[in-house]
């Protein structure tokens, strides 16, 4: 099982606590995690990645094992610690706005 930390507004939208645990079939990649998140929480579709381009929303970042993996290929495998559930995959909103 993979642990995923969602930003505040997405947690509220999905009615979940800070961290969710999901089953990710196959290779654990950012895309695979988002696929699983969107399947479990359909209200989050279109909020993490763009419908048209499938790319990460510009004001969001992805972190794994204290590394910013936002600019890695979205289908690149994440560290084993994320795949095993030892460390969370973090979706973080930019600290910006008013």
């Amino acid at each position, binding site marked *: 099982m993979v642990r995923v930390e969602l*930003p*505040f*507004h*997405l947690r*509220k*939208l999905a009615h979940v606590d800070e961290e969710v645990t999901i089953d990710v079939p196959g290779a654990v990649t950012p895309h695979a995690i988002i696929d699983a998140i969107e399947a479990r929480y*359909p*209200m989050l*579709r*279109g*909020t*993490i990645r*763009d*419908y*048209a381009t499938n790319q990460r*929303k510009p*004001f*969001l970042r992805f972190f794994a094992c204290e590394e910013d993996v936002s600019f890695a290929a979205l289908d690149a495998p994440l560290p084993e610690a994320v795949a095993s559930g030892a460390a969370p995959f973090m979706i973080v*909103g*930019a600290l*910006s*706005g008013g």
Partner: protein
Amino acid sequence: MSGVRLLVGTRKGAFVMTSDGKRDKWEINGPFFGGWQFYHLKGSPVDPNRIYASQSNDWFGQTMQRSSDGGKTWETVGNKFTYDGVPGTHQWYDGTPHPWEFKRVWHLEPSLSDPDTVYAGVEDAAIFKSTDGGQNWEELSGLRRHSTGSKWTPGAGGMCLHTILIDPRNEQRLFVAISAAGAFRSDDGGATWKTITKGLHSKYLPEPTAEVGHCVHRIAFHPSRPSTLFMQKHWDVMRSDNAGDEWTKISGNLPTDFGFVIDVHAHEPDTVFIVPIKSDAEHYPLDGKLQVFRSRKGGNEWEPLTKGLPQKDCYVNVLREAMDVDSLDACGVYFGTTGGQVYCSADAGDTWKAIVHDLPPVVSVEAQTI
């Protein structure tokens, strides 16, 4: 019908306010979805408890909410707004071609006959329709594919389709307005469109009477007389008596005719309300005095309405979606400000009272007579 429910969209959440027919004491519920922008909320005329809401922010983009119990609880519905086919380009601020890109939903217009059917006006300008309660959206692409589409340009707030009117006598007739393209009418349910801009004059355009390029801020009509349209343009208050085929200026004695909102009295088709703003460069009331202007003669002769409104040091704006009327007797008029006030007049504008003073900036106000 004995009461009013206000649906208020703000920069930081949605609010639902209710009152009895006296409209003196209000119960305020919210914020719903605190921290999110709500560009618009609107209830179905067929089932007022069915409410659609446009929720967005800069991080997560557009989401849509729907309530089936008058705004007490909400469910997330579809947010996939995909342009039909290859969207092509419109004109950017500097005159260069720019790809059409969906950004947000500015306006929701529920059908007059079916609570599951609703139109959405979006930025970059297009109109979408859902027939399943907002779960799925399909573009009525005849508008965006209009022969002038490649010449449409964004206004300062983006290239938004912000006004949708459905003719109560013929639901196949739709009116839309786009900043800064102009106004359009469809007589076949949105399949094809024609510009309705004859008579508009915009001095900032290279050709002031061009077919498109006019920054229309709002259009309103009275349901009993849907061929008479009232328009608040960037500058100029306008009127058409032939469904937009021709427009005439009705600014008359207004001290300034720049503004955003315009609305029509629920029982008097020739009584019109606007909130003049100082200028396109200074988006606040003239002389720091918040004034609603009312014409009882369909324009040209306007009277300031000030009783209960701040008459000094007031520098708020009233955005295009932030005024509405109820249909009680006497007609109630409501508007919200960027300073977070929502004002109510229970006597058709003669006197005003703030329902609330300190909300986040108000983007939209819809009144439901329930």
